[in-house]
């Protein structure tokens, strides 16, 4: 299966999978014209990848996301939770900027939704 590799734009994040470390990296900001269209291939890819892989780390650093991207991120986290319940070693590192308390609050809210390891780390500048 081809690893996903989406380039960053001002309104869409970089989304890249490293098959060696089994890490899905998301970086940047997310307020696409149509968030559901943008995230649809990511979600489809993730579902398929999780049928083959026994381990996955989501490494996420998003400065800003709009409400529909928040919904899509929730769906991604929900897919990881389902995979974890089937025995996949899922985990998240959520990186936030100390100057941006909203990102921390969002991470805390998401962490309450899951039972797998979910680390929240400040980005050291």
């Amino acid at each position, binding site marked *: 299966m081809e690893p996903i590799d989406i380039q960053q734009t001002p309104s869409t994040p970089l989304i890249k999978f490293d098959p060696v470390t089994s890490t899905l990296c998301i970086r940047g900001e997310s307020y696409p014209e149509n968030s559901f269209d943008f995230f649809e291939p990511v979600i489809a890819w993730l579902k398929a990848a999780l049928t083959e892989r026994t381990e996955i780390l989501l490494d996420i650093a998003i400065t800003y996301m709009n*409400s*529909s991207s*928040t*919904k899509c991120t929730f769906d991604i986290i929900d897919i990881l939770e389902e995979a974890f319940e089937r025995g996949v070693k899922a985990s998240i590192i959520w990186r936030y900027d100390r*100057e941006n308390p909203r990102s921390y609050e969002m991470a805390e809210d998401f962490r309450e939704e899951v039972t797998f390891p979910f680390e929240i780390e400040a980005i050291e500048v």
Partner: protein
Amino acid sequence: MDLYDLRNEFDKSGIMMCFNGPFSHSIIEETGKAMRNHLVAENIAQAAVLDVFAVYIELAQNVRNYITVRAISPLEAMSSIIAIARQGEKYAVSSGNMVLNSDGETLLTRVNEVNSMTPEEQKRQYRELLRRDTAPGALGAGLGFLEISKRTSEKLVCSLRRVDDTYSFFTLTASI
């Protein structure tokens, strides 16, 4: 065309930036970028810049999505406006657009509902909506007004003016 009077109106309302016309995604993106640069230059905290930007994005994308979903005609779509004003220590972001008369009432009801909820109730509803499946073809998750409310210190302010038998003009303002 003399824009002096229009400019004076902007000054009186504290409007720093304003866009009027049909929004495209690239206009939303570029106007947002200009607005952020402007706010950063005013030396306000990064968190506040992001809150103003977030409210702007939700409002602008709401208008654009509404026009798409309801297939509002290009003539009516022309009257879409987004403005960012400085009011004392606060920033006010407003959007205005033509809506079908019946939708106008629904929007007012929804804004009043969000305004009447406590922060805890808003948070609970936000979570419920996150868990809900998105309707096919939907452009948003129905979270917009809650997202805006989360980032504002005051109640949302809205108004509805009837234009003709089909349309009303809906304005929504959030202060940060």
